[in-house]
């Protein structure tokens, strides 16, 4: 290594020291404390965002279950159990919300896709 190169190396090393030396760094404690706080914020944000989708998926699952039950001989038995609601309102509820299932599926697939393909 010639003199010019080693001088350039020393300048570079000094620059690194000046730019990122201990005085320009966080204390490990402050760093770790904020890491925990930031992750908690991220988790909370994620939970808030996931709630409507989770709810939609759960509701859609219920609708799907009801729709499947309607195709089975169990339907009459179930109706007896759920007689308090009456058969018509339940069917109405099932059909009106059947749209939730594809919507929930699309939302979940799109979110997963955006995560994986990014």
């Amino acid at each position, binding site marked *: 290594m010639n003199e010019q190169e080693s001088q350039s190396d020393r300048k570079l090393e000094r*620059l690194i020291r000046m730019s990122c030396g201990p005085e320009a*760094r*966080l204390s490990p404690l402050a760093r770790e404390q904020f*890491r925990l706080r*930031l992750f908690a914020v*991220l988790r909370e944000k994620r939970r808030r965002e996931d709630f409507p989708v989770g709810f939609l998926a759960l509701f859609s699952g219920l609708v799907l279950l009801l729709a499947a039950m309607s195709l089975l001989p169990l339907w009459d038995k179930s109706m007896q159990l759920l007689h308090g609601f009456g058969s018509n309102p339940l069917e109405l509820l099932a059909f009106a919300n059947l749209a939730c299932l594809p919507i929930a599926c699309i939302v979940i697939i799109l*979110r997963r896709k955006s995560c994986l393909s*990014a």
Partner: protein
Amino acid sequence: MGAEYKGDLRLAARVSHGDADAFDKFYTHYADLVFGFIFHQVNGARTDAEEIWQDTLLAAIQKLPSYQGQSRLFTWLCGIARHKVADYRRRRNGTGSSAIMESAADPLEFVDSGPLPDEILDRSALRVRVIEALAELADDYRSALLARYADGCSVEEVARLIGRSYKATESLLSRAKAALRAALTGGTEEFE
């Protein structure tokens, strides 16, 4: 318009989705660099730098889903940091500096033999540039350079830290310095 920085975009998406490993990687990779960037922007005012740094990362976590990968993730984070620093300066110019002037018994207290504002600005800009250049390097290059020259570890210690032999570490440091030099001279011809 496609994403140029797919690795950064993938990391941002994983962090947005609450992936703990991705978050750790994001934090390990950027927390110190962003702090260093802010620290030099505010000319070494440590307490202010810490406050701005926290605001920056909190804002970044909220805005991460809007990152499109058109620039490096670090550049994007620096954009947020610049806004936060500008807010800090506005607040400071609005209240802080005048309050200090009013409370001073002797205006000459503000005049010292330290560097002139332009010199401070140049020096800070150069340090910010070094941090930006370091952020562009591969992880192993950056870790080795920081351990060796910022933390003052010996080559043996760096070798232990990154799990390589002494010879391999020496070679890595040499390549890392060349990469940093290239990253720096990409922006400015002279870095001293």
